[in-house]
């Protein structure tokens, strides 16, 4: 068939279809190549470099040189004086890294869930206002947030002063609760104190990632079919029962995902831990920084600590994923 100079075939024109197919294949292939280059350039090469450095050797009083020694790893797990003596100092730091990150991630998600759920029940306009506000708080750096909490929790001008001046400290002493706080490390003989403490560390870390938790949970909670909630109500479920039996199970996967993401993010928290954690309870992140840029200047050992942190975090994520799948199958 001919239409004003152009030939239009009635049947399939394989001769011309083939090049377009090739272009499609070429497009897909180039996409894969770009993806592979990005993964290699942004993740594999830096990790390989850190991994290689972790086997390097520190030269006393100088820099380090490439080598293949495992002493950095043995120092991490059993201490520098092994086999004469054993020290679990760095395993302890690793433990605190996971301890703070896990509690803070759970706390942030636990606080973000009811807030986000109530937010999604509001008008679209109000939701937009809240989201803009939350996104703006995300722009605050860790240093800025920690500075604020530092003032709030400082013994002379923050909450402890408020406790003392308002008579709350005296009341706590009278009722015997003061001793409970002292046993928990949240009071000195004169007044309550939050610096340094696990509570202050964890609360500040949770505050840091709370906006992220809200933003991560928001899509799932806003997509919940409202008629499911109403259906549960008509079947006799009170509001709390509706949340427990309908809302929470419906968003369990986003909740688990958000918790794991924030947990991994919090493993790298630096400023909060340096300000609020007791020296004996500081994390591997601090130790890594000191080894690479700080006082000790031992890049191979810092790299070994980073590798252990990364591998342990990976194992944790794998275990969590497996646990979630196992729980899903048991349902």
């Amino acid at each position, binding site marked *: 068939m001919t239409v004003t100079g152009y030939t239009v075939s009635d049947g399939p024109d394989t001769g011309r279809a083939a090049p377009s197919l090739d272009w499609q294949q070429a497009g897909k292939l180039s996409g894969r190549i770009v993806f592979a280059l990005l993964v290699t350039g942004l993740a594999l090469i830096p990790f390989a470099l850190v991994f290689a450095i972790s086997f390097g050797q520190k030269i006393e009083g100088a820099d380090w040189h490439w080598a293949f020694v495992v002493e950095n790893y043995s120092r991490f797990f059993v201490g520098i004086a092994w086999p004469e003596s054993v020290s679990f100092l760095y395993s302890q730091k690793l433990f605190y890294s996971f301890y703070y990150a896990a509690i803070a991630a759970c706390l942030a998600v636990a606080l973000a869930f009811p807030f986000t759920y109530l937010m999604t029940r509001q008008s679209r306009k109000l939701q937009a206002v809240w989201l803009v506000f939350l996104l703006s708080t995300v722009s605050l750096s860790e240093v800025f947030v920690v500075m604020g909490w530092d003032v709030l929790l400082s013994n002379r001008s923050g909450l402890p002063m408020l406790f003392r001046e308002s008579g709350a400290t005296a009341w706590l002493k009278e009722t015997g609760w003061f001793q409970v706080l002292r046993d928990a490390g949240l009071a000195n003989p004169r007044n309550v104190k939050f610096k340094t403490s696990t509570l202050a560390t964890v609360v500040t870390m949770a505050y840091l990632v709370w906006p992220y938790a809200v933003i991560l949970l928001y899509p799932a909670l806003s997509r919940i*079919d409202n*008629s*499911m909630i*109403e*259906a*549960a*109500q*008509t*079947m*006799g*479920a*009170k509001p709390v*029962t509706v949340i427990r*039996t*309908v809302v929470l*199970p*419906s968003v*369990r996967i986003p909740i688990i995902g958000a918790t794991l993401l924030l947990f991994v993010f919090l493993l790298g928290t630096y400023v909060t831990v340096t300000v609020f954690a007791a020296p004996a309870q500081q994390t591997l992140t601090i130790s890594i920084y000191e080894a690479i840029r700080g006082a000790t200047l031992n890049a191979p050992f810092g790299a070994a600590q980073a590798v252990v942190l990364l591998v342990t975090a990976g194992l944790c994520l794998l275990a969590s994923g497996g646990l979630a799948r196992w729980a899903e199958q048991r*349902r």
Partner: protein
Amino acid sequence: MADLILRGISKEFGGGVRAVDSVDLTFANGELTALLGPSGCGKTTLLRMIAGLDTPTGGRILLGGEDITDVPAHARRFGMVFQSFALFPHLNVEDNVAYALAIAGMDKARRRNRARELLDLVQLADYASRRIGELSGGQRQRVAIARALAQEPRIFLLDEPMSALDAKLREDMQVELRLLQQKLGITTIVVTHDQREAMTMADRIVVMSAGRTEQVGPPQEIYNRPASRFVASFIGKANFLDGTVRDGAVETAGGVLHLDNPAPFRNGAPVSLACRPEATHVSTRSRQAGNEIAAHVTFIRDIGPNREVFLDAGNMPLICEMRGSESDDLAVGAAVFAHLPPEALLVFPGDQTGTAP
């Protein structure tokens, strides 16, 4: 179980929008009532207020003399099937059905037995362990019905329960649902915008428009004796002819049409006449019996055993429904006579401009 009574129920949303306006209704025990009307007429809002999901801004809801207006949804024990079915995707079929029983604290063995009984009732006994995502639309609807019935509800409410189903399945389910309701004898209220669905299932139809009830009655009464032009246009099809009253007859653009009973209007009053398509007769020859309008055929449509013949009677569109064999001599463009029998003519005041969308 006692009657459900609505007394002056109103619902006003922000901005002065009245979704439901002073509705008075009584739902008799064991009866299936259809709330029928176009989108936005307030039927779903009324159902939600009955369920306790919305609070009326005026009026009272009584069940057996007990005022339940302020009783929250979870304490009413009304089963409800939602338009989207609202099944819980994180639970399997059996757990969905047993949800209300679990909430009520029934032990696992008893609620499992009850769920199995209900699944048997809706012919899904073999689907107990299936996930919701593995079910078809019809199966989901049955699960939603079984789930709503699990708590032995005092009132059974259904909000457009067939709208998510295809045409064939919808017709089958209408019959099934009606049989199930008759078997259980439960007071049931169905919201629908489909007049065929309402006619198929309901003992009584409540036709609603703009937040008010237009007419309440059995399906045949609503169809044969519509109370307003709106009801006549919304329930089935009708030919409408505007005219003025002259000595009990009505003068229209097509001629004078007589009624069985003289129109109860003063001379010169504007009125609308309505005649159902199946009561309108078309012939190529005049019957010489009056009540005839000259027209010509514009379109013929086959609808199964019958045909719809579309006519133009001097810029007045008319539709006639007749058996296929009776319309063999008709063709598009043919000059014909439309006969509107006096006994089939309904007359409404001419200022009733409301017609169904």
